């Protein structure tokens, strides 16, 4: 049961995460002083990478 829930969670997080990156990839233009396309890319990818890493971490601590 817990494995099935983890798999569903992984599909939701990874699937939607990749869709977010795909749909926002064209929105990385810097908008103001203090911003650049590389920092915009970092802000886009970092939270989703962390979410996917959390799924992987969960797999290692499952009872």
């Amino acid at each position, binding site marked *: 049961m817990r494995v099935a829930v983890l798999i*569903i969670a992984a599909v939701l997080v990874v699937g939607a995460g990749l869709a*977010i990156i795909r*749909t*926002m990839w064209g929105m990385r233009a810097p908008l103001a002083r203090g911003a650049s396309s590389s920092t915009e890319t970092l802000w886009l990818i970092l939270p989703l990478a962390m*979410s996917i890493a*959390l799924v992987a971490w969960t797999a290692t601590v499952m009872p």
Partner: protein
Amino acid sequence: MDGDGDAVSTATAGAVARPPGIVRDLVTLTKPRIISLLLVTTVCAMFAAEQGVPNGWLILWTIVGGYLSAGGSNTINQVVDRDIDAVMDRTGRRPIVAGRISPVAALAYGLVLVVASVLVLGFLATWLAAVLSLVGVALYVGLYTLWLKRTTIHNIVIGGAAGAIPPLVGWAAVAGDITFGAVLLFAIVFVWTPPHFWALALMLRKDYSQAGVPMLPVVYGEHATRVQVLLWTIVMLGTTLLPYAAGAGITYLVGALVLGLPFLGMAVMLWRDDRSRPWAAITFHYSLLYLALLFVVIAVDAAL
């Protein structure tokens, strides 16, 4: 004479019923309604860390410290953002904008609250909780308010880390450390923030546009924002399943699904409906209830 007496009693009753203006303004600066939701996540995280009911005094002092910390952050935020607040309908009557409290006085007040929070949490909870609350202040004031809010459409995504600190403070107050369970609670609040805040931004698009704040709907429009609300709600729903995979009880799983699926349904309706305002309002208000109830479920599941 009777008339004068009535006037005096009415004035006296009014003075008793409503606190003096300065007190009211000092409380308003801390944004008590926002803090109440943060404190729900803090206290429920304490139950999760204890796997039962924590010490009552520890809960009390953590609430006091958490309020002071968040109140200090919110006050400093209003000092920095007073130019934005002045041009937004929603915030145009705040004490600093209205000139009832000077920016310097408000800044001093905010800093005093932050220092007091560190002392309360450090001496009466744990020093890790105190340090984490300070990290929360730094993230909210430094990362979000001073940097990201005015420069990127990802402002509320990355800035959401500040709002996700309170569960860590609650956990650290009980356990004295941060383990996997605490990180999960942080992550849940973090991924809840984009659909919550972008639903609000859809409602306040004109205000943000007037103030020149690059919220997603201002820069890339309402359709792009509705798509992101839906996708982030799916990420959030997936993330809320992880505690069960990691060992939480069936009570938690049922609660997470019962609360999360309506949230997903609202995000779908918001995505499909071109007249997004009503569904944005519904999604935003439900998101507040959702987070509070989800954390109550976490606490109940831990205490069972």
